[in-house]
C-alpha cells in the first residue's frame, strides 16, 4: 500500500475519537462492547484487504472511471449518489461534532453561525482543490502534529490519574454476546482506506496487501481501539462513563502540564483535533464532491463555465445543508443519528465490496 493510504486510514481512526464513536462504545460497555470490538478489529483488517485487492485490477482508476467502463450509466448514477451522500454525512458528522465542541469548550460566547462560517472558506478551498494536494496536505499536517500527538499520548498513558484497575474491571465484561451497534461503530474506524474510491486515480502503482500490511493495519487498529476505549475508562472510572457526552474532552482535561506555559492539556487536544477534524471533513467532502461531480456530468465535454457553475452549486448545497442540519440538530439527535449512520455504514461497505467484486469479474471476462 502507498503510504498515503495509511494516512487516510489513520486520519479516520483519529477523527473518530472526537465524534460520537466513543460514546456509543461506552453506552454498551456492559453489553458486549469488548467482544464486538475484537470481532470488528479482525473484520476491519479483512475489509481493508478486500478493498485493496479489488482495486488491484484497476491501478490509477477511480470508482467512477471504473463504473464508466463496465456498467451502464443508469446503474452507476444511483450508486454514485448513494456513496456521495454517505461520504457527505461522514464529513458533516465530524463538522457538527467539532462545532459543538468549539462552542462548548473554546469559545462559548460565539454564535453557531460564526463558528460554522469560519470553516466555510478553508474547507471549500480544500474540497475543490486537486486530489493530489489533499494527500500532500495530509502528510504535511501529520508531520507537523506528530510531536504534539506523541507528547499527548505519552502524557495520557503515563498520567498518575489512570486507574488500571478500572481498565481491568472493564475487561471482565468480555463474555457478553456481541452487539451490532458497537461492531459497526468500531468497523467505521477502519473505513478510512475507502477514500481510495476516488483517490485511487493517483495511485498508479499496483498496491499489495500482504501479511506486512495486514499486521500494520491490525496494530494500528489495536492501538486505536484500546486507546479510545480503555484510556477514558482508566482516567474517568468505569461506573458512570456512559453518561458523559464527550468522554475524551473530560479525559484530556483531567491531566495537566505542571510546568507548561499552557497548563490544561485539553487545549492542546482541542487544537490538534481541530486540525484532524479539518482534514477529515476535507477528505470526506472532497470524495463526496467528486462523486457528485461524476453524477452531474451532463455532457462528456463540459465547458469551463459549466464546470464552475456546477462547482459553485454543489458547494452552496453542501453548505446550506450543513448550516441547516447543524442549527437544527440537538446533541441527543446527533448521537441517535450517528448510531443509525454507523449501522447503515456496515451495509454500505459490504455493498461496495460486492460491487467491486462484480466489477472485477466483469473486467476479467
Amino acid at each position: 500500500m502507498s503510504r498515503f493510504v495509511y494516512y487516510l486510514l489513520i486520519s479516520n481512526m483519529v477523527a473518530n475519537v472526537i465524534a460520537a464513536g466513543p460514546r456509543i462504545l461506552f453506552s454498551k460497555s456492559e453489553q458486549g462492547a469488548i467482544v464486538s470490538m475484537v470481532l470488528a478489529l479482525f473484520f476491519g483488517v479483512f475489509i481493508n484487504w478486500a478493498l485493496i485487492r479489488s482495486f488491484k485490477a484497476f491501478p490509477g482508476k477511480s470508482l467512477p472511471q471504473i463504473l464508466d467502463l463496465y456498467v451502464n450509466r443508469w446503474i452507476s448514477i444511483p450508486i454514485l449518489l448513494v456513496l456521495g451522500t454517505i461520504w457527505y454525512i461522514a464529513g458533516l458528522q465530524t463538522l457538527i461534532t467539532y462545532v459543538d465542541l468549539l462552542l462548548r469548550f473554546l469559545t462559548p460566547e460565539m454564535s453557531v453561525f460564526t463558528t460554522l462560517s469560519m470553516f466555510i472558506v478553508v474547507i471549500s478551498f480544500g474540497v475543490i482543490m486537486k486530489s493530489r494536494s489533499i494527500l500532500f496536505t495530509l502528510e504535511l499536517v501529520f508531520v507537523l502534529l506528530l510531536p504534539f500527538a506523541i507528547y499527548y499520548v505519552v502524557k495520557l498513558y503515563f498520567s498518575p490519574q489512570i486507574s488500571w484497575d478500572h481498565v481491568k474491571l472493564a475487561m471482565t465484561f468480555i463474555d457478553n454476546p456481541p452487539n451490532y451497534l458497537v461492531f459497526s461503530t468500531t468497523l467505521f474506524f477502519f473505513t478510512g482506506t475507502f477514500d481510495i474510491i476516488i483517490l485511487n486515480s493517483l495511485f498508479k502503482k499496483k498496491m499489495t496487501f500482504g501479511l506486512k500490511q495486514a499486521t500494520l493495519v491490525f496494530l494500528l487498529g489495536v492501538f486505536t481501539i484500546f486507546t479510545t476505549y480503555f484510556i477514558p475508562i482508566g482516567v474517568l472510572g468505569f461506573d458512570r462513563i456512559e453518561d458523559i457526552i464527550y468522554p475524551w474532552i473530560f479525559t484530556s482535561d483531567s491531566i495537566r502540564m505542571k510546568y507548561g506555559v499552557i497548563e490544561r492539556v485539553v487545549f492542546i487536544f482541542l487544537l490538534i483535533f481541530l486540525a484532524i477534524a479539518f482534514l477529515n471533513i476535507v477528505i470526506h467532502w472532497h470524495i463526496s464532491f467528486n462523486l457528485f461531480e461524476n453524477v452531474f456530468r451532463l455532457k462528456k465535454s463540459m465547458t469551463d463555465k459549466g464546470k464552475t457553475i456546477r462547482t459553485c452549486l454543489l458547494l452552496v448545497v453542501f453548505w446550506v445543508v450543513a448550516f441547516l442540519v447543524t442549527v437544527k440538530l440537538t446533541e441527543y439527535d446527533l448521537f441517535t443519528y450517528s448510531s443509525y449512520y454507523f449501522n447503515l455504514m456496515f451495509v454500505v461497505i459490504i455493498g461496495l465490496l460486492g460491487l467491486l467484486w462484480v466489477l472485477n469479474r466483469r473486467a476479467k471476462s
Partner: protein
Amino acid sequence: MGEVENEAPAYLNRLAKQLAPSADVVKKTLKSKERIVHLLYLKSVVDMMQLQEIIVKPFYELPKEQNFADYIGSLPYETNMPSGDEDVLIEITKGNVFVMLDKQINLLELKMIASNTVQEAKMEPTIHGPQLGLSDSLETNINVIRQRYHQPSLIIETLQLEEASNRSYALVYDKDIVRPKLLKVLKKRIQSIDAKLIQGSSDLQHHMNDVKYSLFPTTLLTERPDRVLHNMAAGKVIIIVDGSPHALIAPTVFFDFMASMEDNYYSFWVVKLIQFLRYGGLFTCIMLPALYVGITSYTPDVFRTELALTVAASRIGVPYPSFIEVFFMLIFIELLTEASMRLPTTISATATTVGGLILGTAAVEAALTSNILVIVVSLVAISTFVIPISEMNYAIRVCRFLLLIYTTVFGLAGLVLGMLGLIIYLVNKDSFGEPYLRLFWKNRQEELEADEQ
C-alpha cells in the same frame, strides 16, 4: 587588381539610415590599394581597442597575397548572421560590428561592457562559501557558472526576449538531469510573456508568474553562484538575463526559499539547529501576533493562570481591544522596516533607533500598547529576517496580516484554521508543474513521474 569600389553598398546604407540620426553610429570605410571594407557599428557599445587590434590593424598590415576575407571569416568573435534587417540591427545595437567585404558580410562581437565585474553578494550574505555574486554581463555570468561546473552536459541556450529591450537571456541547465517537459513549459511561458519592457531578471520573475493575483513567488531570484549551482545540479533551470546581476531559478518550491547556502557548509547538528531556528522563526512571525489577539481577546484561559494574569495586567490601561493594538504596532513596525530599507545606511540607523527604542517605550508609557506586545512585535520583526530569501519574507509578512484578520474574527480556532488554510493554499499551488509544498521521503523521482500524468 580590379578597380576598388569606393561607394558603400546599398545594403549598408539602408542599415545605417535606420540607425540614424543617433550620434554614436559609425559608418566607416577602410580602404587600401587592393581591398575595401565597410564597417558599421555603434561606438558606444563597441570596444575601440579591440576594433583597432582586430580589424583595422590587420587590414593594413596583412600582406596582399593573403585574403582579408578569409581572415575575417576565421576570427573567433563571429556571431551568427540573422536573416531579417530588423534582427541585424538588433545585433548591432548589442555591440556587434557589421563588416562588409565585397559580397561577404560578417557580424563580429566586439562588445564593450562597462560593468562586467563580479559584485559582492549583498542580499544573501554567508560566512562561508563564495563572497562574490554574479555580474551584469551575461558572458561573465556564464563564465562564473562554467568555471564551477565542468560537465559536457551543461547546456547554455542563449535566446532573446521579444519585447522592447530585445535583451538576450540564457537558459542554463544540465541536460542529463533536467526534465524535458519542464524545459518546454518554461520556454513556452517566457515566449508568451506579454510585456512592453523587461528590465532584468526581477521583472522577468514577475512576468513569469502565471497567476494574476499571486502572493508567493514561484521562481527564485539569487545572486549567489553556489545557490545557482546547487539548484542546477538538482535538475532545475537557471535563467540569466543580460544586464542583470541576478539569476532566476525555476521551478522552485517552498523549501527552496527556506534554504540558506550555509546549510551545506556546516556540520550536521549545527545545520539542524540553524534550520530549527529558521522554521521556528517562520512560525513565530506568522502566528505570534494572531496568537496574542486570540489569547487575550478570546480565550485567556488557555495559558496557565499566572501567565494569563501577567498578560492581562500588562494590558491594564490600554483603551481598546487587543486587535487594534496589534494592528497599530504591526503597521508601525512595517513602516519602520520599509523606511530603513529605503533610506541610505547612514540615516537608517537613526530611524531604527528613534522608531524602535524611543517610540516603543513611549507607546507603552502612553498606555497605547502593552509591554508584552512590544516584546511580541519586536520578536516578530526579528524573526521575519531569519527567512533567507527576501521574496518569501515579503509574502510571509502579508500572510501574517491575513492570519491576524482571520483570528480577530474567529478566535483561536480561527488561528488554527487559518494556518491550515495557508498550508492547503501552498500545497495546492504549483511552480511550473511541481507542487509548491510537500514532503519528500523516498522515491522522489517516482512521485514526480506520477504527477506528470
